């Protein structure tokens, strides 16, 4: 086993290898001129000291441990269903302390503003009256739930769990690409990846001074409990899942297990006199807080979609009566609408009187004639998205589209401009990944998790999603994306020169 050199000694020879292509994008590990970025040096050293064989072996161990734990999603084929693991990469993605400090502040600011915004649009609607956000954009959105108007939400915490998608552009700056305010998922991968990385690079992990993410489950539980704190002394919290066939089922069970609360399905709950009960072996038991992993539409067939069997009839009325808390609150989706997104910097300014710490990606609203014209004129450079759609549908990636596709999209744009926004095509930053035994750059994004109840907390870590196809910018797991662990370094940890652990692995 090669002895690891101290950071200072290693820096001379620490450069981008010849076969690691430098692209247009910002690379997380290597600076543009080829040197290894300081916060990546420990890891780079370690990777170099391990041979290709050893790396492949560790990758295998990693995948096997995921399969064994059942961290899988189900792929439905013609006559059978097979379970696959979400591809996970060996190398952690590392974020330095100053970078993280800015991200953390920015995320807290953003979520505070968005919660105030939700309280406002479901209440007095001052922001609409003051003309900051167009009335029809909010009240006309299908995700605006009139049922939520004038309803008391403790601490104004409409969004208790938020998983924003951040990206890093060519200049190394972080942008917010999307605010996921409905039912964000992926936190179990953050935790599982961390557990795996601790075993894969134990010495490096310890030396680097990585901030812990393991407290997430109890912070989540505290957040959920704080939502009932003022009216039920020891609230019964449950996690509501659509069931074992949901692709995120593993995560639902994982969180319930780590929080030590029951994992319920709609059929386990029933409503009597506007109180929510779960059916236990010893009779009915009152439920106070529901962390629901079911979309708005499906939580209550009486108030939302009538054909849903995943939810509980009467649940929303129990919520309106103040007898139960639903987290996240229904109707938060209106604030992560793609068109409303463009207004978030103004929303932050309106409620907090501050400039946004984390910038938005420049967004053209096609509802505004000048911006529509700009979009039409630059279709070959822009990404155009339908406002109501998600998951990569109804989207045109200008640079990759044919002339015919662009012409077709231009017609759709002109016919219904309100339904579209456009953004410049951004080269997501790249990070080194182990692909078929070789180390190659792949595009990544960043999904940190923010909790908000009586206070707002950001877990120092994130899910880094990886576009596993060379050159691809799509990181969604439904489209061949994978994930990797994310290390947030603490500022006060001096690099430790004690190598015994590392050498002994």
């Amino acid at each position, binding site marked *: 086993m090669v002895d690891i050199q101290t950071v200072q000694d290693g820096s001379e020879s620490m450069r981008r290898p010849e076969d690691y292509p430098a692209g247009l994008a910002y690379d997380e590990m290597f600076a543009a001129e080829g040197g290894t970025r300081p916060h990546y040096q420990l890891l780079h050293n370690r990777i170099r000291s391990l041979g290709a064989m050893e790396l492949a072996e560790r990758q295998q161990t990693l995948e096997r441990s995921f399969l064994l734990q*059942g961290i899988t999603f189900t792929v439905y084929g013609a006559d059978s269903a097979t379970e696959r693991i979400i591809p996970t990469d060996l190398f952690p993605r590392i974020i330095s302390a100053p970078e993280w400090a800015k991200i953390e502040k920015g995320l807290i600011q953003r979520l505070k503003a968005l919660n105030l915004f939700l309280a406002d649009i479901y209440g007095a609607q001052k922001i609409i009256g003051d003309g900051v956000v167009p009335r029809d954009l909010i009240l006309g959105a299908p995700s605006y739930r009139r049922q939520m108007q004038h309803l008391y939400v403790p601490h104004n915490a409409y969004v208790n769990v938020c998983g924003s998608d951040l990206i890093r552009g060519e200049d190394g700056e972080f942008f917010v690409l999307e605010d996921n305010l409905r039912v964000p998922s992926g936190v179990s991968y953050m935790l599982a990846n961390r557990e795996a990385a601790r075993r894969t690079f134990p010495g490096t992990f310890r030396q680097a001074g990585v901030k812990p993410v393991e407290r997430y489950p109890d912070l989540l539980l505290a957040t959920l409990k704080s939502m009932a704190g003022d009216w039920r002394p020891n609230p019964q919290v449950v996690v509501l899942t659509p069931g074992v066939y949901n692709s995120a089922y593993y995560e639902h069970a994982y969180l319930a*297990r780590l929080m030590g609360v*029951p994992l319920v399905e709609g059929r386990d709950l029933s409503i009597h006199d506007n109180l929510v009960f779960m059916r*236990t072996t010893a009779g009915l038991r009152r439920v106070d807080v529901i962390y629901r992993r079911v979309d708005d539409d499906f939580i209550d067939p009486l108030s939302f979609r009538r054909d849903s069997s995943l939810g509980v009839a009467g649940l929303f009325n129990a919520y309106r009566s103040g007898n139960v808390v639903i987290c996240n609150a229904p109707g938060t989706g209106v604030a992560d609408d793609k068109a409303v997104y463009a207004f978030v910097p103004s929303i932050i300014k309106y409620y907090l009187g501050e400039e946004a710490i984390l910038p938005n990606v420049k967004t053209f609203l096609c509802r505004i004639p000048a911006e529509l014209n700009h979009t039409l004129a630059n279709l070959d450079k822009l990404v155009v998205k339908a406002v109501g759609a998600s998951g990569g549908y109804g989207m045109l990636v200008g640079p990759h589209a044919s002339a015919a596709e662009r012409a077709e999209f231009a017609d759709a744009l002109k016919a219904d401009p309100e339904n579209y926004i456009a953004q410049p095509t951004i080269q997501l930053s790249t990070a080194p990944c182990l692909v078929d035994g070789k180390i190659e750059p792949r595009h990544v994004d960043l999904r940190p998790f923010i909790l908000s109840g009586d206070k707002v907390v950001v877990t120092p870590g994130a899910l880094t999603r990886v576009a596993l196809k060379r050159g691809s910018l799509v990181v969604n797991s439904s489209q061949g994306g994978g994930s990797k662990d994310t290390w947030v370094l603490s500022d006060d940890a001096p690099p430790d020169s004690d190598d015994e652990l590392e050498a002994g692995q």
Partner: protein
Amino acid sequence: MMLARVADSLYWVGRYVERAEHFSRLASVMLNATLDRTDAGTQAAELARAAIGDREPAADANPFEAARALVLNRERAGGSVVDSLSRARENARQVRDQITTETWERLNLLYLRATDSRAEHEFDANAPDFLAGIIADLHLFKGAADATMSHGEGWRFMVTGVHLERARLIARLLRVCFSGHQGAVLDDHLALVSVLRMACALEPYLRAYTADLNSRYILEFLLFDEDFPRSIRYSTDRMEEHLNRLSRGREIGRGDPARLAGRLNARLAYTDVEDVESTGASAILTAVEAECTAIHQAMFDTFVAYPLEMRLPA
């Protein structure tokens, strides 16, 4: 306190795991018996097949194929090892938050191995090894559950499932072997050894009765022994114990499963092999199977599908 659905799933995990183990053992004995090209070997294989409900062990169906189907065929009417493991694992997955990681990983590993595309190949190459591996892993699963899960309500539901299934399966095995179902009295040495093997009872039996093999002692051992974990008496004892704890402090009217289990247990406690011989084994074995069905139903009615009106908080 636990969710009714969760209790039901854990109970079924127990039942399916036990079924998988029993089927593996039957398949193993079946394969082993056919190594002897004697009438006794054929008889033993046929007993095993009768015990798994292959009604007409047709002469043309070869015992290897029958064992293979019992292990690997998911569509086999009456179940198979792979089918039982898949169902156990599916139930466990639905209550993943309730079982420890150690326990879950054992079961998940078993499932992955049994449903792997190489499983058929492994079985064909060395079936006894394959089956021994599965049985050993099932023991690890039960050991992990015992060693890492809290022995509270959920665990009791699971263990009750194990013992109810075990009592049922052993009763059926004994009924097929000793109630004249096959027409002839069982007295061949190899056939008797096979019966004991199917109940995993050979070594404990020898310790209790020495190598004196006869159907009367075997019946006595597998029906009434208080210490052997695969005797029916032992299983009903455990069922009574766990169900008593499960229904403690609850208002349960008629049809209390603990009461049913206690009644069955008492019947076994106050019957001996002379009584059985005078009335024929069939009567008591049929009663055991019927009582197990009644206990199963009573558990469902009491803990899972109870009418809500009776349990609303006042």
